[in-house]
C-alpha cells in the first residue's frame, strides 16, 4: 500500500516535471525540472529494489551531467521568441517522430504484437541469469558486468574516452606569446640558477 502510494507519487512528479522541461519558458528552470525528473526516476529505482542504479543515477546524472547542462544553459543567450516562431512549421515532423517512437516502444515491450511465448523464454533466460538470494545488487551488477559483458563494458568506456579526447582537442588552443605558469620550472629554480652576483666596480655601474 505504502509502496504503491510512493510509486504514484514518484511517477506522477516524474511525468509532470518531464512535461515542464519542454513546456518551461526559461531554459534554467527547464534544467531544474530535468533534475527533478532524474531524482524521481531514482526514487522509482529504489522502489523496485535497484538501489545501486538509483544512487548511480543521482551521482552521475544529477551530480555531474546536469551541473554541466546548467553551466551551458546559464552561459548561452537563447532568444525564445525566435525559437518559438518555427513551432507550427516543425510540429508535423515532431508528431511523426513521436508516433514512430511510440510504435517502436509498443513493439518492443507490448504483448500486443509480440508472441507471448517469446516473452516467456526471455523471462526464463533472465531468471536463469538472476543471482542467488542474499547477494546485494551492487555485487550482482558487478558479477555480470565484469564477467559476461566485460568486453562490451570496456568498449563503452573507450567510446567515452574517445569522446572526451575529442572534446579536449576541439577546445585546446595554443596561443603564442601567452605567459603561462610552469610549476615544474618554478620548482626547478635554485639559488644558483636564479641569482647572479656581480662585483660592480665603483662609479662605473654594471
Amino acid at each position, binding site marked *: 500500500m505504502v509502496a504503491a502510494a510512493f510509486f504514484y507519487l514518484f511517477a506522477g512528479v516524474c511525468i509532470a516535471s518531464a512535461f515542464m522541461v519542454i513546456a518551461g519558458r526559461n531554459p534554467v528552470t527547464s534544467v531544474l525540472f530535468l*533534475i527533478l525528473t532524474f531524482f524521481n526516476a531514482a526514487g522509482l529505482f529504489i522502489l523496485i529494489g535497484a538501489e*545501486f542504479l538509483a544512487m*548511480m543515477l543521482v551521482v552521475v546524472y544529477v*551530480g555531474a551531467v546536469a*551541473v554541466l547542462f546548467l553551466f551551458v544553459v546559464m552561459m548561452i543567450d537563447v532568444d525564445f521568441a525566435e525559437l518559438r516562431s518555427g513551432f507550427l512549421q516543425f510540429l508535423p515532423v515532431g508528431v511523426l517522430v513521436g508516433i514512430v517512437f511510440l510504435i517502436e516502444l509498443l513493439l518492443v515491450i507490448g504483448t500486443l504484437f509480440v508472441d507471448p511465448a517469446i516473452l516467456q523464454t526471455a523471462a526464463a533466460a533472465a531468471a536463469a541469469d538472476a543471482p542467488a538470494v542474499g547477494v*546485494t545488487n551492487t555485487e550482482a551488477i558487478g558479477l555480470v558486468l565484469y564477467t559476461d559483458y566485460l568486453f562490451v563494458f570496456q568498449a563503452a568506456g573507450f567510446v567515452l574516452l574517445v569522446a572526451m579526447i575529442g572534446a579536449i582537442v576541439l577546445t585546446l588552443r595554443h596561443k603564442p606569446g601567452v605567459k603561462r605558469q610552469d610549476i615544474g620550472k618554478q620548482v626547478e629554480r635554485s639559488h644558483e640558477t636564479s641569482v647572479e652576483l656581480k662585483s660592480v666596480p665603483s662609479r662605473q655601474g654594471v
Partner: protein
Amino acid sequence: METFLAFALILGKSLLLLVALLVFIAYILLADRKIWAAVQLRRGPNVVGPYGLFQSFADLLKFVFKEPTIPDSSNKFLFLLAPLITCVLALSAWAVIPVAEGWAIANINVGVLYVLAISSLGVYGIIIGGWASNSKYPFLSALRSAAQMVSYEVSIGFVIVTVLMCAGSLNLTEIVRSQQDQGLATWLGVPWLAFLNWYWLPLFPMLIIFFISALAETNRPPFDLAEAESELVAGFMLEYGSTPYLLFMLGEYVSIILMCAMTTILFLGGWSAPIDLPPFTWVPGVVWFVIKVCLVFFMFAMTKAFVPRYRYDQLMRLGWKVFLPISLVMVLVVAFVLQLTGWAQAG
C-alpha cells in the same frame, strides 16, 4: 499499526539526531572561531555566557530576528529555495552515518554511494543561489564553486573506491567492522592495539588526499574561493541575509561535520576504541566517534587558520593534475596488492 510504529520510531531517531547535530554544530562553530582566534593571538568570542559559550545561540537569534531582504530583480522562488536545498541535503546525508554500533537511522547497503550522491547534490544550492540572485559577483562565485566541487568529487570518489576495495562492502557499518577485524595490529599479534588496524595506516596517502579534497568540497579555507571576500565580496551569499543566510551557513557546517564523520568512518575506525582493552572499551562507541570527529575538525580549523588561500587556477591544477592521477594510480595499486596477496575479502 506496525508500519505506524516503525514510522514513529524513525521519526523519533531522526529528531534526536537532528537536535544532537545542531547543538554539536553550535559548539563546533564556536570552536572554529576560538581556534582561529587562538592561532592569531586573539581571544575570540568571549562575551555571551561564560567563555562565550552561548555565542552561537546569540548569533542564531540575531539571524532569525533580522528582516529577510529579497533583491527586486531576483527569481524569488529559486532565491529562497537555494538555502533550503543546501541545508536539507546536508542534513539528509546524516541518515546513513553510523555514529555507534547499530546507531544509523538507515543502515542501507549503498551507504557510501548515498553520501556521495547527496554531497554531489550540494552544489545545486550554491549554483541556484548564485543564479537566482541575478547579480554579477554571486553568479561568478557560483560558477567557480560548482566547477571546484565537481572537480574534487572525482578524487573523493576514487579515494572512497580504494577504501571500498579493502572493506569489500558499500555499507558504512561494514566498513567500520572490517577495520576492527584485521590489519597491522592483528598480524603483529597485538590485536589490542586496535588503532593500528584502521585504514589510516595502510591507506595513508589516501587519507591526505581525502582530507584536502574534503576541504575543497566543503569550500573551507584555503579553498574558499566561492567566498573570496577580497575579489567576490562574499561570493554566492552576497545577496542573502537573515534566515536564508543562516540556512546556508548551517548547511555548510553540517556538510563539514559530515566530511569529518566520513573521514572518521573510512580511515579512523568509526566508533571503535583506539585500544581494545578496558578502560577504553568501557567508553561507549558514540563518545569515541564524537572525539574522532572533533579531532578531524580540529585539523580543519587549524588549516583554516594558517594556510593562505589558493589561487583559482592552482586549485584546478591540484584537483585534476595532481590528485586525480595519484588517486587513480592508487586504485590500481591497491587492487593489485589485494588480489596478489589474497587480502581481498571474499564476497
